[in-house]
């Protein structure tokens, strides 16, 4: 394993909940919990935690001061609970929390302004003291933890997934925002690839556009739909050329872009090729024998996962999916 120069926690973790995971791909949370439990990772989920603001922040409706104050509030709970290791499932939560911790540590005037607002409004408990949270060592992504424990993953193998043709798509906000903290490269990111390797399911070493974004682009997806989809097409066509079975992601925003829009993108490009979109935690859970509907939550995916289950000879009852419309 390459040298890791940031701290990777396996205990005292607050699994930081993501608004998009919660509402769009809740199976990512269930899979992360499943895999963490198998690997003996100690964590809590805290319903005091508010959303990181990330989507709203990057729609420009949240100003930096508000986002940072909300982060300070969240940090105070993690510290009070003795679970100060924040581990988000979403790349944007990861980047937002790191940025907030940096601002709180480095910009004295901002920290003081936020603390003053807390004190004047009966919220003293949320005050932040410089250095409370180390942005590098106290905020790590789920994939960092999986990578750190990757050699233990094969001990829990239940399903042979070596027949899958996999491409990886690394979240921009994991790789590029705080790139000094990124493990396994940020210009040619490979952290998910390394986790695939231990499961005997090596991902494509390279494909055209690999280090590029998903095209979601926050406001672009909604208010500039064509521009957003044009950008997604670049990678989409490259993935078609490679004839992959699965696109592996580590961020719900990317998952949404490739999964929810697959039909739209096929119509836009006239190019058809089936591939499923999975979060890395979902694939590891599947490899460990997790139930496709009760843990992976594949019924919430727009693109059916059942063809992948067939390919892997995994038994399932399609009646468990009450969301897809059957012809």
């Amino acid at each position, binding site marked *: 394993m390459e040298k890791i120069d940031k701290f990777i926690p396996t205990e005292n973790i607050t699994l930081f*909940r993501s*608004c998009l995971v919660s*509402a*769009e791909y*809740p199976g990512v*949370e269930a899979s992360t919990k499943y895999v963490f439990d198998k690997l003996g990772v100690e964590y809590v989920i805290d*319903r*005091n*935690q*508010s959303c990181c*603001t990330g*989507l*709203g922040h*990057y*729609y*420009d*409706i949240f*100003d930096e*001061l*508000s986002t*940072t104050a*909300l982060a300070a*509030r969240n940090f105070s709970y993690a510290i009070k609970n003795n679970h100060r290791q924040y581990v988000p499932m979403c790349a944007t939560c990861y980047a937002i929390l790191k940025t907030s911790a*940096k*601002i709180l540590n480095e910009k004295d005037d*901002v920290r003081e302004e936020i603390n003053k*607002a*807390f004190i*004047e*409004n009966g*919220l003293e408990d*949320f005050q932040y003291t410089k250095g409370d949270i180390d942005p590098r060592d106290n905020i790590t992504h789920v994939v960092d933890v999986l990578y750190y424990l990757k050699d233990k993953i094969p001990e829990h193998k239940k399903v042979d997934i070596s027949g899958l043709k996999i491409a990886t798509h690394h979240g921009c906000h994991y790789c*590029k925002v705080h*790139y000094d903290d990124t493990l396994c490269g940020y*210009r040619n990111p490979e952290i998910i690839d390394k986790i695939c390797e231990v499961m005997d399911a090596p991902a494509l070493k390279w494909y055209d556009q690999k*280090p*590029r*974004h998903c*095209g*979601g*682009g*926050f*406001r672009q997806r*909604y*208010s500039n*739909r064509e*521009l957003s989809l044009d*950008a997604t097409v*670049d990678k989409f066509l490259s993935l078609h050329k490679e004839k992959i079975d699965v696109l592996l992601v580590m961020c719900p925003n990317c998952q949404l872009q490739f999964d*929810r829009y697959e*039909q739209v993108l096929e119509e836009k490009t006239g190019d058809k090729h089936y591939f499923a979109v999975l979060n890395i935690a979902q694939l590891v859970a599947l490899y460990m024998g997790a139930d496709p*509907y*009760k*843990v992976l*939550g594949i019924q*919430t995916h*727009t693109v059916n996962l059942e063809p992948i289950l067939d390919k892997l000879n995994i038994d399932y009852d399609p009646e468990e999916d*009450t*969301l897809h*419309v059957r012809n």
Partner: protein
Amino acid sequence: MGENNGDDLAHRVLSDIKAPSDLGLLRCVQCGLCTSVCPASRHSDYDARNIIKRVLDNDESIIEDEIIWNCFYCYTCYSVCPVGNSVCIVNQIIRQMAIEEDVGKRKIESFMSFADSYIEEGLGVIPKEYHGQLHIDYGKHWTNLQEQLQDVRKDLGLDDMYLLPEAKETVDKTLEAIGFKKRVKEVKKVRDRMDEVE
């Protein structure tokens, strides 16, 4: 451009809360690597390198220019910049300057349901203003998911996705204390004026 007088556009950007202390804005050599990897530059008239040029030229008109709203916030420019500059971050700062005026508020008013949800629940949502198009793009499955989400989560053995009542209260208080609610009101005022004109 002013001689390091601190109040030209570049220095205002550098002193913004969003600017990291090591942001390499003044070190930009206009190499164009940012533009070469930028999705907005590839697919629209946006030109990442030109954004920085205009900021360094103290071209204030950029604040009102529609083009700043094309950045994807993917930070790919930042990840390749040889001098540690980030067009993405500079762009975020310029947009906030635009939001201080009506011109920027008009660009974000259609996302205000995210703010409403956050104030109410401490939780973000996909902006309701765009659900019409999304139901078309994502199909009936997504509509079903919206309706059955809580049952699906229960089947997955997940805890309630909403915050505890007392937590919602302190989120609300935090948003009031830090001025976010006031900001939302101001954006909505501009939205209401736009509605009147229509």
